[in-house]
């Protein structure tokens, strides 16, 4: 398709292309990383206990769930709901944060933890797309292909991610680093094409930007795969 270049487009420098009148802000300024700071595993005040990303680059698929600091955070989470069932989504989130995906055994473990039946937990977990029912790569790359990104070339961006990682949608690349899938609207429609990589958004991504983004992600991947 024809490129949608205009003189205002600055080119994507690895995370966002069109920052318009705010181009003086750093990536950290826009992402708010210094304000957020380091989030301790046990959580701070309980009201924010659910604010942790549950799609992390570093995964511990064999680790026991809900022990040590994770136990502490889980208790904080549970204290925020009038019944155990209310804590189901955040508990599933926490399990995925630790293991990187939710195996049937993980869902059963969550059911046991909250006193719910295993079949109920499976029924809920399979309703939601963000629970990975199979392992994913270090980086889960989700390309928005919904209408606002689509009319600006999202299908080509999706194709570029598949080509440059040598994968089909949902597969893990041979080096274990990437799983690419198309996504529904990510709620950042003014910045097409929007790509979510684990917890971060990459904005105004064009097919030409894809190699540089993948290179950055290779650089940032945790050194020791567990």
């Amino acid at each position, binding site marked *: *398709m*024809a490129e949608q270049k*205009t003189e*205002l487009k600055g080119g994507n420098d690895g995370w966002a292309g*069109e*920052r*318009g*009148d*705010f181009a003086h*802000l750093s990536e950290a300024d*826009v*992402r*708010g990383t210094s*304000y*957020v*700071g380091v*989030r301790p595993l046990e959580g*701070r*005040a*309980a*009201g*924010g*206990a*659910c*604010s*942790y990303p*549950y*799609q992390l680059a570093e995964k511990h698929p064999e680790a026991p769930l809900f022990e040590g600091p994770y136990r502490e955070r889980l208790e904080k989470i549970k204290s*925020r709901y009038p*019944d155990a069932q*209310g804590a189901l*989504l*955040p508990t599933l*989130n926490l399990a995925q944060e630790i293991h990187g995906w939710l195996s049937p055994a993980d869902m059963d473990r969550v059911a046991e933890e*909250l006193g719910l039946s295993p079949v109920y937990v499976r029924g*809920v977990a399979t*309703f*939601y*797309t*963000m*629970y990975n029912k199979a392992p994913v790569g270090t980086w889960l790359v*989700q390309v928005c*292909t*919904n*209408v*606002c990104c*689509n*009319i*600006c070339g999202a*299908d080509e961006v999706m194709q570029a991610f598949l080509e440059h990682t040598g994968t089909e949608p949902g597969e893990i690349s041979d080096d274990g680093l990437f799983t690419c899938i198309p996504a*529904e*609207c*990510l*709620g950042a*429609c*003014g910045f*097409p094409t929007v790509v979510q990589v*684990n*917890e*971060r958004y990459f904005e105004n991504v064009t097919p030409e930007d894809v190699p540089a983004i993948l290179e950055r992600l290779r650089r940032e991947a945790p050194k020791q795969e567990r």
Partner: protein
Amino acid sequence: MAYPYRHERETRVLTEAFGDPAARSIEGWKKYGGYEALRKALGMAPNDVIEVVKASGLRGRGGAGFPTGVKWSFMPKDDSRQPHYLLINADESEPGAFKDRELLRWTPHQVIEGALIGAHAIRAKHVYIYMRGEFFEPAQIVGRAIEEAYEAGFAGADIMGSGISIDVTLHLGAGAYICGEETGLMNSLEGRRGQPRVKPPFPAVMGAFSRPTTINNVETVATVPHILRRGAEWYRSMGTEKSPGTKLFNVSGHVVRRGNFELPLGFPLKDLIYDVCGGIRDGRELKAVIPGGSSVPILAASECDINLDYESVAAAGSMLGTASVIVMDDRTDIVKAVRRMVEFYSHESCGQCTPCREGTEWTAKIMRRIEAGEGTMEDLDTLLEIGRNMTGTTICVLSDSCAAPVASSIAKFRDEYMARIRREVPAGALTV
């Protein structure tokens, strides 16, 4: 000073601090007058807070435009028998909508302050901010802000020494558009599938955890502190009589400057596109506009001489919705764009109601067939017939939202469908 572009015709109220990283912290937010309104509200009786918001004419920003003060007044006046809840709908997922994300990531305390005022007004002791799971970055910012609010004594027990206690909890979803529907949201919060509930009972009678509940959009509650601080009269001095105040217009698609712009309601759509957003990219022509997110009927270029307030957009046969303006230039392939929207609704249908579960799926199949050049003339009638059966027949309006762009695009861009059916590539359309 919205993000990522500024424009001189903006009226900065909610967006004043956008682009100022310091405004995220509680200290930074106080420099913008933060938490003065909460202090004032806690000194007022709950009913008086409701009266101020009623007088301001503020209408809910989640899409329906229902008057916020009136919604709050539906809550029982007695909270001694059962707890009340306030839920903040931060599940922004309507294709085209990206305003709440900016409010959450630039001004988390604006949202929290508004939520606390709302909770006081409806006598809720607990606020849940239900944020879509994909918003990890805004979630970490809001989570940190909630922790700061507790540390400062602005949330939790005995807020500012008022004797009033309100807890705030951030809750993350896990990827389901339907959880943005208020009763689906409540089910999801309760640890269920996010399937909408039959109304009645309405949330104010039996909502989250079977208790009286109000659900407000992020932008709605973010507006409330400004109304408390500056008064209902001031708020009414902006916008139109029936649609007062400012609104975040989130513009996507083929304009030169995409982004959020805060403008008074009633702002002309053409001025938004050609002045504020700098016109169509690459000197192209306008073909169509979806003025309120993907769920509302599409407007052809010839129908765009309208003002952007709830009444005017409705009079033009569409809806203001979330004021998420999707602009399409003359190269846009309408059939492909509509097919993609329909596939979205098909993917997101929760499956409870037959007209939606089956209707969205069959609509998507037929749209794919037409796009591939394998459609027939009868397909257009079938699409419209399915759409009629999907409208007003289900628990929630997801089904209606799927039917609306199909019907409006067939009515207004019939020649593009015909070209596909006749296996001609429509003139000016993208070839894929």
